[in-house]
């Protein structure tokens, strides 16, 4: 086809685009994914039995705060990586993990030696990262759907950022079901689940996000 003819056809199709169209696409993928993931958590694991009492203590909120902070940073990165020419900044990325490491250290030093293994491994370290990866999958699928409608010029990096965001969202949802309360446990095993999802995201993004 002649380029001029193509231009005519594209110009004839110049429907207005809302300024917020890209943000809406991302929000839709993220929202639907998170909804499915939350439903899966309720059906599969269920909310922890002691929610009412646990809510009084800070460890309950620590898990939500950490995963939410990671999710917000990853969301910012995904939003920029979805737009050609927008630079991804890397200023805040390690802040939540750094805060968790510090908190874990304080808790570690304040605990008798005999309980250290319990701080680190809890009762669920063998299942925790895998459950997070599993609960992240619906969110990741939603984000892939969104990103394919946008324009990530670095597919692997965008896939990794989407993976981290999905992992953090999955971990946030899992926090409703998880009864662990040690900072070290969250810093290690939650992070492991999020990082695994990020790695998976990079691998999948490499080929799934081409356009």
């Amino acid at each position, binding site marked *: *086809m002649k*380029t*001029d003819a*193509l*231009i*005519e056809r*594209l*110009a*004839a*199709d*110049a*429907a*207005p*685009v*809302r*300024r917020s*169209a*890209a943000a809406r*696409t991302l929000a839709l993928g993220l929202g639907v994914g998170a909804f499915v993931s939350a439903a899966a958590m309720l059906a599969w694991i269920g909310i922890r039995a002691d929610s009412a009492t646990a809510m009084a203590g800070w460890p309950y909120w620590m898990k939500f705060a950490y995963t939410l902070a990671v999710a917000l940073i990853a969301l910012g990165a995904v939003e920029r990586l*979805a*737009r*050609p*020419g*927008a630079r991804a900044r890397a200023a805040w990325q390690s802040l939540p993990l750094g805060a968790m490491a510090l908190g874990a250290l304080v808790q570690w030093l304040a605990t008798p030696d005999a309980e250290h293994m319990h701080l680190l491994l809890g009762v669920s370290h063998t299942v925790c990262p895998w459950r997070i990866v599993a609960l992240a999958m619906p969110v990741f699928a939603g984000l892939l759907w969104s990103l394919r409608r*946008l*324009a990530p*010029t670095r597919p692997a990096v965008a896939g990794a950022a989407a993976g981290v965001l999905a992992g953090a969202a999955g971990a946030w949802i899992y926090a409703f079901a998880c009864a662990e309360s040690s900072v070290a446990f969250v810093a290690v095993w939650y992070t492991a689940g999020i990082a695994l999802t990020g790695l998976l995201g990079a691998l999948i993004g490499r080929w799934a996000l*081409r*356009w």
Partner: protein
Amino acid sequence: MLAASQGDGAAYRALLAALASHLRAYYARRLARSADAEDLVQETLIAIHVKRATYDPALPFTAWLHAIARYKLIDHFRRSRLRRTLPLEDAASVVAEERTEAAEAARDVERLLAALPEARRNLIRHVKLEGLSTAEAAAKTGLSESAVKVGVHRGLKKLARMIREGTR
């Protein structure tokens, strides 16, 4: 692009036509076969159309356009399994490309400048773009040196305000 996003077909057609010749030069410089270049021009125009929602009006249009053009070029190399090796005699054309990218940035600048009154526009062009000293610019325009300084300062201030307000 902004007019095009609001559904102005005529402005959009003009933009696409300008981009087409621009992209043709961009790809012709980087590809041996001109048929490939034309394919890529069309592919990139389609991508610009389909992905136009990802253009953020707060960011420079040229950066957005370039990222898409470069992505399509890399995609082309990946598909055709060519390595981007560069014979030494082509090095000059790479240097020339750098100049083209600067020229595109200059296009953004020119559009902003167009909104200034002519005298002030010329002052900024002399002092900031052509690199004349204040004294040289004063001699050229017949103004006093302090008038040149004030004119440049106010002009830049207006430009900065326009960028902040997203007038482009």
